[in-house]
């Protein structure tokens, strides 16, 4: 069960999630302080009035605009769950790469303060008792999440590939 702390409309751009003027950040841990920097929720976050594991409910095309990964890492830093009717492509991929919890729920209806309960294929809004179907992630993306995110997954492939390269060059060595 998780509480909705922010509901926000369609076409929310990465400039709203993470304004461009804070883009000189290099470490993912530097970014959460600037999440939604121009919205009132930013103050609440930085005063620790919002516990981890709460929910943002958004409309269509959440995360449109820039490829800045800070938009995903800032939300990940507060351990948000983002439920949206749809996501913009690059934000969606960044979220998966970094392990931000995102859920595509085309019919979701909730308001701030509502409690949501998550099931593998649907969400129940406990305040209205309504149920909303979840659109599953494509299998290739789910594999990435299950593999611990893109860094861990790439590291694993790197080790495999370099290992097979070294055994091959050992095989072809002239002795």
């Amino acid at each position, binding site marked *: 069960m998780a509480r909705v702390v922010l509901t926000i409309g369609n076409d929310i751009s990465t400039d709203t999630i993470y304004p461009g*003027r804070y883009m*000189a950040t290099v470490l993912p841990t530097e970014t959460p302080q600037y999440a939604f920097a121009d919205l009132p929720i930013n103050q609440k976050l930085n005063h620790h009035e919002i516990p981890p594991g709460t929910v943002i409910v958004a409309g269509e095309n959440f995360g*449109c605009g820039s490829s800045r990964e800070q938009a995903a890492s800032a939300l990940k830093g507060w351990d948000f769950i983002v439920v949206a009717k749809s996501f913009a492509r690059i934000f969606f991929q960044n979220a998966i790469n970094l392990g931000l919890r995102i859920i595509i729920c085309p019919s979701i209806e909730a308001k701030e303060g509502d409690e949501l309960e998550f099931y593998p294929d649907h969400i129940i809004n406990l305040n209205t008792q309504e149920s909303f179907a979840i659109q599953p992630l494509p299998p290739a993306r789910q594999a990435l999440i299950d593999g611990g995110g893109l860094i861990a997954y790439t590291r694993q492939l790197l080790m495999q590939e370099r290992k097979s390269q070294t055994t091959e060059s050992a095989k072809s060595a002239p002795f």
Partner: protein
Amino acid sequence: MGMTVVEKILAMASGQSVVHPGEVVEPQVDLAMSHENAALVINQFHEIFKGTNLEAKVWNPSKIAIIFDHRVPAESAKTATNQKKVRDFVREQGIQKFHDIRGDEGGICHQILAESGYVLPGSVVVGTDSHTTTHGALGAFAFGVGATEMASIWTLGRVLNVEVPGTIKINIHGNMPWLVSAKDIILAIIGKISAQGANFKVLEFHGEGVDNLPTSGRLTLCNMAVEAGATSGIVPPDKETWRYLREEAGVDISEIVLQADLDAHYDQIVDIDISELEPQIAFPHTVDNVHPLPDALGLPIDQVMIGSCTNGRLEDIEIAARILHGRSISRRVRMLVFPASFRVYRKALQAGFIQDLIEAGAVIMNPGCGPCLGVHEGVLGDGERGLSTTNRNFKGRMGNPNAEVFLCSPAVAAASALTGTITDPRQILTNDAVNTKA
């Protein structure tokens, strides 16, 4: 079933004879571009190598390009330190396609890639910038990725888990009217299909409207494909593509044929006739809030900005200079011009355009992204209205959530600078050819 242009590129890059939308492939990358955000990529790159006992080496330094453009010269100590970190990395890894802040080779990443001949038809280009879609204008499959994705690409040389996108065919019919430009066409398309109308899809451009466009205009079209949510835009390579590559980008390679099959599958076909198209303008605060120019005429403005990867090329500066030549901009506006690269800047100087602009009261800034992303140089004040040839007008995009940004073509921007209100350029520069005919 046949393949679209992007399906063919992805099949080649993934070592398959055929691919279809929805299939997951791992294409080899021909060019991987970053800008200042390479500092973040470097951090994630080192994370990948952590605990492996392997030397952290990029897969192929000749396929990596890094261009400083977003904050040049550095606006803060933090940015300056990041840029230093990137320069060190470039040296240590032997990356050659590096463009620092220099008058001989600097500029906005997307302009640099195109004019330096780094992008070839049929190639796979990725960039840590959403406007990497720009390079579809040269017949490449080019798309934006995040920093961690780029770190993974630097390590392995391929993109993991790419779902082959579906394609929307855009047929542009008719001839372009006087003082209407590629910017107006793409704004009209975005207004028509919406900011998410092409989410996860490719826009493949066809028709006489694109056949007649020089590469500069095609770059503008593909640049803004992402504003409709598209993964990429693409113009199948034709005579003009090869001309641009040879004459303007200095590449000498043999031509290839890269066309969609006649029985290729399109998710959607959109027809747009431009023969009667008005100049277009996007109202705040979304790019798809597009109106014909007459809806905006007379709105007072405070700042005009001409530049960016969308409209900072020589043709854009030329039309502004022709409109401003011998005239003076209104005292109620500031006008900032950011050429897209130093090469563009030098050519505009030689042609006398820069002189025209300065004498009219415009300020020429150094090539780079400038105020486009709201970090420095030309931020708007509370309650101010900016008119800009850039590609985004989201709340806060140009540095101040309490300001408004309208998007338009260079001709509309220049004409409006003269009056201080949104103005139709056709009232200032008449088409003599049309007039004599009439």
